[in-house]
């Protein structure tokens, strides 16, 4: 079984770009990134079956392992493509719903993030208040 270098490089590029997009904060980019990752994974699965471009069944020349491609990964990839397609559609709908609700195409902070943010803001406010009071005390002392 020999691989195909072009396909291997393409798979690498798809995984890289997909991962990069997945780390973005915009929902649209995340959706596109996941789609690219899905394509990369599907190609990898296809590549696992060996050289592409040959008939997956017994060819006109008769059955021979050299002239036929492995049909199993092709069948699995078809299934995987359908699943990726369906879930991507759902994800798009969800991203759209999120945009309708918030008018923003961004990942929203989770509950824990917001709690940490609130705690920090309160803490800073208290510090600023303390500092202000101390300044005031100093001023009164001088007077």
């Amino acid at each position, binding site marked *: 079984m020999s691989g195909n270098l072009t396909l291997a490089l393409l798979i690498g590029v798809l995984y890289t770009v997909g991962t990069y997009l997945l780390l973005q904060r915009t929902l649209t980019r995340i959706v596109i990134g996941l789609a690219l990752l899905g394509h990369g994974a599907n190609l990898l699965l296809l590549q696992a079956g060996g050289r592409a471009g040959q008939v997956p069944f017994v060819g006109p020349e008769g059955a021979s392992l050299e002239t036929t491609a492995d049909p199993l990964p092709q069948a699995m990839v078809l299934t995987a493509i359908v699943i990726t397609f369906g879930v991507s559609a759902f994800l798009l709908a969800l991203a759209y719903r999120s945009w309708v609700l918030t008018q923003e195409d961004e990942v929203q902070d989770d509950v*824990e993030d917001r709690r940490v943010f609130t705690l920090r803001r309160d803490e800073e406010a208290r510090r600023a208040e303390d500092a202000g009071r101390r300044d005031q005390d100093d001023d009164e002392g001088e007077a």
Partner: protein
Amino acid sequence: MEVLLPLPVALPLAGAALSILLVRSSTVQRLISLLTLVGLLVAAVALLVVVDRDGTQVVQAGGWAAPAGISLVADRLSALLLVVSAAVLLAVLVYAIGQGVADGGRGVPIAIFHPCYLVLAAGIALAFLTGDLFNLFVAFEVFLVASYVLLTLNGGPAQVRAGMTYVVVSLLASVLFVTVVGLVYAATGTVNMADAAVRLQDVPDGVRVALGLTMLVVFGIKAALFPLFSWLPDSYPTAPSPVTAVFAGLLTKVGVYAVIRTQTLLFPGEETIAAVLLVIAALTMVVGILGAIVQDDVKRVLSFTIVSHIGYMLLGLGLYSVAGLAGAVLYTVHHIVVQTTLFLVAGLMERREGTSSMLRSGGLQHVAPLLAVLYLLPALSLAGIPPLSGFVAKIGLFQAGLADGGGLAVGAVVAGTATSLLTLYAVGRVWVEVFWGEVAEVVADADLEDTVDVGVARTPRLMTGATIAAVVGMLAITVVAGPLYGLAERAAEDLADPSSYTGAVLGTEAAS
């Protein structure tokens, strides 16, 4: 006999199809779901009896022999988990019908709950029964897609935000799953698990360990293991209570099942992976419970305890001994029931108080003494107080860990003990804040989606009844702990000896 194996998958799928066709009548939909899940439970129990008597059962789908076709395999572990899952699914369905989420509730145009719920059941059953790696991927997708819909059922801002995290993380896990299936196929030329188990022995060590660890990451995301768990406490609490209950009980356990199945079958006794498992087990337990004790929302506390207690099952797996695996199996069974029950109780509490925030609740034991009992029993069981089921499961695990005697194993047992105490603290805090103290004034949360009548004394009997049934089921595990542990031990013996599985699937057993 042969018909029993596909039945747990086919029955809910057929029910879901019927349910969509009869979408106009909610009574008929309810009836279909109930009958289907009762049928599923009966089939699962029958399967368990047969499997425990005659050993592992195999059906080759479409009559294609093992490595070429898709095999459905039921061994003791999958049959046992199937029975528990079916029982839990049924109890939660009754609860959901009582609550009224099932019938559309507010703002849900058509009753989509029932078909999705049945598809979820079919996916879970298929994940337990399949003997094919790619088919396992399909099973995961089936129940995941159903869970996406169930999680975002109401389409409110909180669900969409949490659903986004959940869907993206799950989808990423699925992409990794396809990747690892491709890699296994490239390395062995098969996706049949039994066949792959045989052929992986000829694969170079480095490649095998790499495949094993990649698979651990894939299923680790679903099972919410230590570094990969942060999506769980964020997304689960936003769904309606029955949905959270079934997710909490079952979905992470399907991930745990997949970890146990793949690690024992495909990569048995791999030293590197065993060490990684024990370290992750200890970290999952401790980090999870530390997350739980600082939360002030009951559902979030419970979500973190799910994460934490996954560690116990991993601990048993990491030991790779029959006693350890038996402990892990028993703990999985116990945890499915207890965690589901706790979320059902949390749903009742939320209905009563109008909120799941601990800060705004109080004095519930004066208002609802029955609810207090219903909470206390599973909570103490979760913490492992004797004689409840959590204690039985934990003692088995800890004994196995100490018998192993290795530094990592003993360290993990110590972490487990500390986690038990901290769990007691976490559930005790909920008890003190919610059940003791002054009776709090009922103020409904601003965006409380799943409760129709908030803060009323009248809780639908079905909801209470289903919760009582779940608590009784949990107590039953304690009562039958002896025979159950025997069953878990037999399941563990099957797991520890992969040749029993591969022999049954590939038919080599019959030949020899």
